[in-house]
């Protein structure tokens, strides 16, 4: 169904339910949908599972969501950072669950969710702690681990521009997880720096077609 456009991030995140799995884009701050996360904090949904590459930095954004106690579980590749003190405290005091997923599996499992793949055999992690208890199979002499899709109820992503059909383009390495997450969630909400007229994006260079994008809001600080 057609992409809807909102004036405020608060409207864009309306209706996110307690217990949702929320995919959060970004790699470090690049592509991080900070305004949507802030709106999600105001919106109040709790008992969330957050899927993101990291587990929050400093005291803002994802870290602020964690600090409010809204997140039951984090699924990520790299929770430990110099400034991940909010997550560190919650984890060490047993107040948050953690599933560490190799970064490529994180991306590929979300791609699988978006592409209708039921499960896939992947060489990453074979023979390691992170494959313990997982099904494996030898294929052509190599050991593969069976991995299942990660599907989101909601994805919050940051993009550079959207046209009026919700076609998105990103900028440089801020692209990272956005396009994959956009395929993997039931409701995809994008914060963009600029909304442009339909027809002004190069159809050869659209990265996320509007079919994947449910809601768009322009960043307030740029609006």
């Amino acid at each position, binding site marked *: 169904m057609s992409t809807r456009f909102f004036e405020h991030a608060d409207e864009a995140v309306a209706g996110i339910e307690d217990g949702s799995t929320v995919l959060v884009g970004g790699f470090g701050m690049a592509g991080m949908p900070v305004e949507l996360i802030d709106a999600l904090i105001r919106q109040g949904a709790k008992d969330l599972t957050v899927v993101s590459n990291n587990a929050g930095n400093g005291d803002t954004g994802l870290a602020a969501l964690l600090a409010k106690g809204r997140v039951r579980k984090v699924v990520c590749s790299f929770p430990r950072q110099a400034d991940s003190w909010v997550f560190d405290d919650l984890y060490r005091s047993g107040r948050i669950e953690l599933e560490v997923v190799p970064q490529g599996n994180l991306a590929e499992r979300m791609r699988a969710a978006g592409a*209708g*793949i039921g499960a896939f055999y992947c060489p990453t992690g074979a023979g390691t702690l992170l494959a313990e208890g997982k099904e494996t199979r030898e294929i052509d002499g190599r050991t593969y681990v069976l991995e299942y899709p990660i599907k989101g109820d909601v994805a919050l992503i940051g993009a550079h521009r959207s046209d009026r059909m919700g076609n998105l383009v990103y900028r440089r390495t801020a692209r990272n997880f956005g396009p994959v997450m956009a395929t993997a969630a039931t409701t995809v909400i994008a914060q963009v720096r600029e909304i442009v007229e339909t027809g002004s994006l190069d*159809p050869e260079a659209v990265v996320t077609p509007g079919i994947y994008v449910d809601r768009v809001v322009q960043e307030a600080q740029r609006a």
Partner: protein
Amino acid sequence: MTATNTATGAGVPPARLGKHEMAALVARDIPQGSFVNLGIGQPTLVADHLPADSGVVLHTENGMLNMGPAAEEDEIDPDLTNAGKVPVTELPGAAYFHHADSFAMMRGGHLDICVLGAFQVSGRGDLANWHTGAPDAIPAVGGAMDLAIGAKKVFVMMTLFAKDGSPKLVPECTYPLTGLGCVDRVYTDLAVFDITPEGVEVTRTFGITVDELAERLDVPLLTA
């Protein structure tokens, strides 16, 4: 029993539908803003009946969203065709992508509606539309199996009876299957059928009564 009259909406002709009337009927049932794939053959006609303000976005599995109408004369570009290899045009807001991305879109359930032709549909929504099963036929599936299993809703457009008079809505498909339990609705020249968990429901008829339909089909029919 007046299912014929009550089920036939205003503006829909009471007589057996021609293929353009069927296409118009399908077009009317596609919600505003849907993302739709129209299969090769008759389903392609549906595009001609979508109102200009429908906001419906057409997908073609060879890698495009927001496909426009068939190209004419100097619009023809060999780099721009639909899945039937017919030259088409591009609408504003189009996007191109490669085959794996295009089929990921289909198979991942992102299209709202897919309209397909069929040899047979079973009462449970099994679809047979890729292979006659004839011993000398060269099998060719294309994207049919991917379309059948991927879209949120699969509509079939077909004549209700084959040229030899045999019904194409059947208890069990005798042609090789394209997909199991994948069809949601069947548009035919004589009636529209919804495939529901309870069975096959006749929602509209054209120039035939439900009793007559029930007589000519081996599938039990429910009426709305």
